[in-house]
């Protein structure tokens, strides 16, 4: 079942890349997608972790808009910090507790932290992250745990 959906996603990827809908290229795309599915099974990467299609709707509709807003907000802060002549930085390392249950959820959390400028994940452990923040206020925002809560909510219903 998962292999079928992987196949469909990869075939759609091919069609969007190609844009030529001749018979030969369609067949080539289908063969390609099939080969890649089989090969990724052989490489042992075609499991639930490697193809989290069940998360896609929630990601696109709920999580990404919020993340975009966060990125814009913190980018603005970092940009003003860079442009000030005094360079008012106060680098901080924070340990955060993460409440995600799966590795995909932890990865989403870690990458969301890194993606927002001003904070970056240094160490992603099982239930504790080591985060470096450019300013103390950025670290405090992160420690309020809103992002953690949203990621946990997003990865639920697995």
């Amino acid at each position, binding site marked *: 079942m998962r292999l079928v959906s*992987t196949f469909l996603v*990869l075939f759609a*990827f*091919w069609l969007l*890349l*190609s844009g*030529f809908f001749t018979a030969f*290229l369609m067949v*080539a*795309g289908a063969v*390609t*997608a099939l*080969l*890649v*599915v089989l*090969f*990724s099974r*052989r*490489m*042992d*990467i*075609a*499991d639930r*972790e*490697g*193809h*989290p299609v069940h998360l896609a709707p929630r990601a696109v509709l709920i999580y990404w808009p919020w993340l975009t807003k966060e990125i814009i907000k913190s980018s603005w802060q970092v940009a003003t910090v860079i442009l000030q002549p005094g360079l008012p930085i106060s680098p901080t390392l924070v340990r955060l507790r993460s409440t995600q249950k799966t*590795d*995909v959820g*932890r*990865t989403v959390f*870690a*990458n969301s932290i890194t993606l927002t400028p001003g904070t970056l*994940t240094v160490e*992603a452990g099982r239930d504790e992250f080591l985060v470096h923040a450019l300013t103390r206020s950025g670290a405090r925002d992160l420690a309020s745990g809103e992002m953690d809560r949203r990621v946990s909510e997003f990865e639920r219903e697995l």
Partner: protein
Amino acid sequence: MRGDLVLRVIAKLLIPFILVFGLYVQFHGDYGPGGGFQAGVIVAAAIIFHALIYGLPLTRRAVPEWVVELMVAAGILLYAGVGVATMLLGGNFLDYSVLAHEPVHGQHLGILLVELGVGITVTGVMLIIFYMFAGRSRSPHSES
């Protein structure tokens, strides 16, 4: 690097798409920038990425060394075979027009096969180079 969960999960997500992209470049050589050489490099890069994250032994199990050696030989054989086939059919070496009834079809087929040969060979050579580099430094007992 398998201990790092971020790298592991993202690599799992990414590698199939890189492979499809590589084969897309392979088959669209006559429409845009691309062709056998680039496609071979991209496919090899995907496999090298797998080796970087999951370690060489696992990759060697998925793509054994004899397969890689076979790929190098088979690609060149395909290339030369097309050439010889065109000669047998009465044209010059790599004169694709004689491969099918219509010259244009023949040219398409010929270019496709030759590019496929180039792609397979390039993938094989890249992987052999990588296997040699990566297997050399610490483990003299290579498990080929």
